[in-house]
């Protein structure tokens, strides 16, 4: 029993260390055998997943856990880095490692005909490391370092198909946006350090005075992390990178995107948690102001995502715009939760938003994998050039139908559970928002029904006569995602009670997050 407890207490460090070291072991392993390399990547991610599961079982029961890198007893309080894991961080880590595992399984067949795969797996594990680091860290400068790692590694992955000019273009756009953004995060961190002489998130939250400079910091962090999360009107890099990266990579970049979204939540709920009720101009409390700004941007994201998805002919790009709309739904829920802080429906909106984080990863991930399977079989991107694929790709068609119903929020699937929570609670704040969200969901259904007809139904095309079903590992990856979507759709309460509610409560309970560090040491 003591071994298990030791493992749990060391796991925050191991969760980062295992993928990081295996990332750099991959080139060595792949010298021996290509198959061994794939098995190694799956096993190492599986091990990380087990550690995350163990840590989750501990954190959800016992509250936040801290892990100290560096001096434990020193009179100078700065010479250390803290990792602080609460239910929300561990929930995000579960999503990240799940997406990564599925992407690696999918890559087994999908990337098998490419070369340079040792570097591919190294970069892939580095993005996973950075996303996990952003989610588990309790130090704001450490967050910046992981943000930069994720931006460098994701950029290299987006440009993986380097013979295509568009992939290079998407990667350049991504790195310009991320590099400038990350520098502004560093600037904001510098301002915070200059005022409070601390870099620890909990300590900063404890000491925050909400001066004029802190308002600037809030704006900088919200804009940059919102941009990295794909919030309109800073979304322009997202469909390019999602549409041009290999679809297995898209899943990994999506996990980095969700980690930035977690950053937004951490900044608003924890760092500014103590001052959210401060009155601003016109007697408006800060949380109402921030909440409504997020809501307006979220509605713009949903509208842009749906409208732009309507006119796309490139399937991967179309799903990229749908992903923007999904991010909009998450921010709509989070904005409502912030604007209606302290009310019961605010708490429900937060639960809906947290559940939708998971559902967004599952649904959009599934659709990307299906689009990747179509690309793998036909080597075509445009919807105009494919058709009648249901004849040969039976399983893929079924998975696509599950994905489209889930992303549109149809009842037996997971999208319904979270979107229903969101509509219900947003309606209490303002009915019009709820109506817009609902209508856009219906439009989303229309868009994907169009895709279903264009790609899978209709007459057989002579050019695609020798199309076949996707390989087994790709079907397995899609099957896991589809299975999870159905499972969450059928038993939402099972997930709500075990992981969603603790995560949402952890976000609201910033006092506990702060006291774990400030009181404990």
């Amino acid at each position, binding site marked *: 029993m003591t071994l298990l407890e030791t493992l749990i207490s060391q796991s925050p460090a191991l969760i980062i260390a295992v993928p990081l070291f295996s990332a750099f072991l991959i080139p060595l392993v792949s010298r021996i055998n290509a198959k061994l390399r794939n098995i190694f990547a799956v096993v190492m991610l599986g091990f990380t997943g087990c550690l995350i599961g163990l840590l989750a079982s501990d954190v959800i029961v016992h509250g936040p856990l801290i892990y100290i890198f560096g001096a434990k007893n020193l009179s*100078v309080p*700065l010479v250390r880095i803290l990792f602080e894991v609460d239910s929300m961080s561990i929930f995000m880590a579960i999503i990240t490692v799940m997406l990564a595992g599925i992407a690696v399984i999918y890559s087994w067949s999908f990337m098998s005909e490419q070369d340079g795969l040792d570097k591919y797996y190294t970069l892939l594990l580095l993005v996973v490391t950075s996303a996990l680091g952003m989610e588990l860290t309790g130090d704001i*400068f450490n967050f910046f*370092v992981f943000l*930069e790692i994720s*931006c*460098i590694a994701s*950029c*290299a992955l987006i*440009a993986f198909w*380097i013979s295509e*000019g*568009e992939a*290079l*273009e*998407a*990667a*350049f*756009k991504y*790195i*310009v946006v991320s*590099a*400038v953004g990350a*520098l502004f995060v*560093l*600037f904001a*961190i*510098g301002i915070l*350090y*200059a005022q409070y002489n601390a*870099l620890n998130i909990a300590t900063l939250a404890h000491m925050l005075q909400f001066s004029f400079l802190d308002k600037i910091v809030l704006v900088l962090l919200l804009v940059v992390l919102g941009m990295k999360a794909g919030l309109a009107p800073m979304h322009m890099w997202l469909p*390019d990178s999602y*549409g*041009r990266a290999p679809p297995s990579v898209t899943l990994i970049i999506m996990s980095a995107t969700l980690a930035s979204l977690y950053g937004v939540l951490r900044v608003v709920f924890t760092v500014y948690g103590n001052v959210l009720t401060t009155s601003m101009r016109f007697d408006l409390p800060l949380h109402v102001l921030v909440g409504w700004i997020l809501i307006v941007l979220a509605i713009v994201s949903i509208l842009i995502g749906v409208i*732009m998805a309507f*006119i*796309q002919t490139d399937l991967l*790009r179309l799903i990229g715009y749908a992903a923007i709309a999904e991010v909009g739904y998450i921010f709509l829920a989070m904005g409502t939760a912030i604007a209606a802080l302290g009310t019961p429906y605010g708490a429900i909106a937060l639960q809906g938003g947290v559940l939708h984080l998971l559902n967004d990863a599952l649904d959009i991930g599934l659709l990307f994998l299906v689009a990747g399977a179509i690309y793998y079989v036909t080597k075509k991107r445009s919807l105009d050039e494919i058709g009648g694929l249901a004849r040969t790709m039976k399983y893929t068609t079924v998975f696509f139908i599950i994905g489209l119903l889930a992303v549109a929020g149809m009842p037996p699937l997971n999208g319904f559970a979270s979107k229903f929570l969101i509509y219900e609670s947003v309606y209490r704040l303002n009915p019009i928002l709820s109506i817009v969200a609902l209508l856009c969901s219906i439009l989303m259904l229309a868009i994907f029904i169009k895709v279903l007809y264009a790609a899978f139904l209709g007459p057989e095309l002579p050019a695609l006569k020798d199309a076949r079903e996707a390989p087994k590992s790709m079907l397995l990856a899609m099957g896991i995602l589809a299975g999870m979507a159905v499972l969450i759709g059928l038993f939402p309460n099972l997930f709500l009670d075990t992981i969603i509610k603790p995560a949402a409560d952890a976000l609201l309970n910033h006092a506990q997050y702060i006291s774990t560090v400030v009181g404990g040491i």
Partner: protein
Amino acid sequence: MIEYIPYITVVAMIFIGLYAVLFRRNLIKIVIGISIIESGVNLFLVILGYREGGVAPIYTSLPPGTTYPGEMVLPVPQALTLTSIVIGVAVLALMLSLVMHIYRKYGTLDVRKIRRLKE
């Protein structure tokens, strides 16, 4: 007034860099713009840690008579700056290699002629 000059320089550098990123059409100039922003932010961090007449924060080589920690410059911002410089080099190298590949592919560095990803 004189003590504000470093901060004014920081703001000026960040705005010059942003101007280059937003309005220049040449990819290399965009990369240069990002480098200028980075230098500005690094300068900001270094200024934060400076103390008038302070000594280097190394315990073993303190000049006799100095008291800890009041007369040392702050070590943490320097550590932050070093980290940021290292990351900056990696980003710069990656961006330049992308620019190189783009030039090979399209034969130009003008953003207007490269844009294929629209809509």
